[in-house]
């Protein structure tokens, strides 16, 4: 049995059941945010329109991921997987953009 202690990663992660109240609150928040983002798009904020729209979208995504998708209560491994997915997504966008943005800088 002593050897089993070396098994660093527990094969089982305590499963957490989220209460319906939390779901309802999140759903309501998401709907409010949807209304907000639609409304804000009619206000002229210049460059910030895009920023605000994306910020709201990211907030909504975070809420869905954390609560509807239970990431808040998940194992570190699952959290890392999600992080890895977004990280690679960012790499794709950012590294491609290094080309497209800097094309305007020089003569090439």
């Amino acid at each position, binding site marked *: 049995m002593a*050897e089993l202690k070396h098994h660093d990663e527990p094969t089982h992660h305590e499963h957490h059941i989220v209460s319906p109240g939390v779901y309802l609150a999140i759903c309501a928040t998401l709907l409010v945010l949807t209304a907000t983002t639609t409304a804000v798009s009619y206000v002229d904020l210049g460059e910030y329109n895009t920023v605000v729209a994306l910020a709201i979208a990211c907030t909504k995504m975070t809420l869905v991921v954390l609560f509807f998708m239970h990431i808040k209560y998940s194992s570190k491994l699952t959290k890392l997987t999600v992080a890895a997915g977004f990280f690679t997504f960012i790499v*794709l966008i950012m590294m491609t953009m*290094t*080309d*497209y943005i800097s*094309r305007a800088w020089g003569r090439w």
Partner: protein
Amino acid sequence: MSTILSLPDQSTASLPKVSYLNKEYGLKSWLLTQDHKRIAILYLIAITFFFFVGGAMAALIRLELLTPQTDLLAADTYNKVFSAHGIIMVFFFLVPVAPAVLGNFLIPLMIGARDVAFPKINLLSWYLFVSGGCIELTMMVFGGVDTGWTFTTPLSTHYLNTNVVAAAMGIFVAGFSSILTGLNFLVTIHRMRAPGMTWFRLPLFIWSYYATSFIFVLATPVIAIALVLVVLERIIGIGVFDPAKGGDPLLFQHLFWFYSHPAVYVMILPGMGVISEVVACFCRKRVFGYTAVAFSSVAIGVFSFFVWAHHMFIMGISSYSALVFSLMTMLVAVPSAIKIFNWSATMYKGSITFDTPMLYTLGFIGLFTIGGLTGVFLASMGMDIHLTETYFVVAHFHFVMVGGMVTAFMAGLHFWWPKITGRMYPESMGRIAAVILFTGFNLTFFPQFILGYLGMPRRYAAYPPEFQVLNVFSSAGATVLAVGYLLPLLYLTWSLKYGKIAGANPWQAAGLEWEIQSPPLTENFPVTPIVTHEAYDYEWLASKKGSEVPTVG
């Protein structure tokens, strides 16, 4: 006291009565199997077939290039042949070969699991692979495609009238096979390890397959969407890659290489895993600097996502971004260098034998060093201007892919052949084949470095006559290389029936897969193993008495 003496004599071993090979009979039991070992065999058969189809295309290419004129093949046929060679070899041989064959067979055995996490998905991915391959072969029968394996837009979308759509769809389907394989391996490695099998007790093979699987899962979807865009551009003209409609043809190359550069590491990382196992076993030592080798696999996997635009230095990307990508490419070369030095250092104070897998491994170390260092030539931006799109590039990636990956795969295939089939291959034939392969390979591809610096462009059906001499050398070498590949096909097939019985552990190697009978039972481990020692613990193995080491009498 020698290591060898304390182990039971394997020569008296006989084949086990029940194994995964003879548990069930009939074609149906194979085609509907969910056993990872049988699926590995299915992959081996399909992939060997594709390898020899691709090899036949390579033979045609080398024959055509014997003379400067287009005499054997017309230019359009030549283009179709090299495209077929590229598509088959990259997407239907190099990418799946090591993960799907060796990975499927060995990952559960090495970590002490009964199967991969999702056996049905595993079978599904074989069917996807075969369907993708069938689409490609059908496409080739009905006229082929002449885009090259890179599908460069706008050539592929607007200027060719060959079967681009079918070719792209075949790769799309096969891509899902890769994704599912990678997903399966990741879950297996994370969730199915035997008790006591901690991360730092894993064989280095598993570490490199782990990195490979991550690339599969995260990079493959991008080429899938890129190919979908090509198909839509071709069929209905959506304009994303069409400069006339305001699109950017270079965007395709970004998306394509975002997958296809990491895919190169998908091809080489499993090879590196094999080399680690073989070096340790035939030096009878733990791999020098286990942690460094393990983390360099992961580092290669991570860095591989940051380097793709080095294929595009002269293609019109901004020079500032070329700088970034060149720098990252130099960084990714470092972990590879670390591995090469660590393997070499493993031999220090070892007790080395030179069986076939070890010969292939030594060949790998030499060829991969050349392949890797010539990669630095291409990563160096100013040098890349002269060398890119020439035979230098062709030589470089064949050194890495064929000299590296295929040699490593041959090492692995010979090393685990007794575990897979229960029988030994003929050792002397194996050694001869390894030497022929090494010689033939260098003869074929070394002249191409010189051709490249002389400026001979790739994908030329006809070339100026001053390049003929080196091309003749190259083609001559290719015949030797062909013998080097046909020979193993023959003697390995022969050994299925006539090979010596191997016994559970013919190499006296450490590792869970060698503690069970060969060929293994369908459920792999009758009793779930409990791991109490580090990987490659040859001292531990040597201290065991003969009766304590499991074998099959």
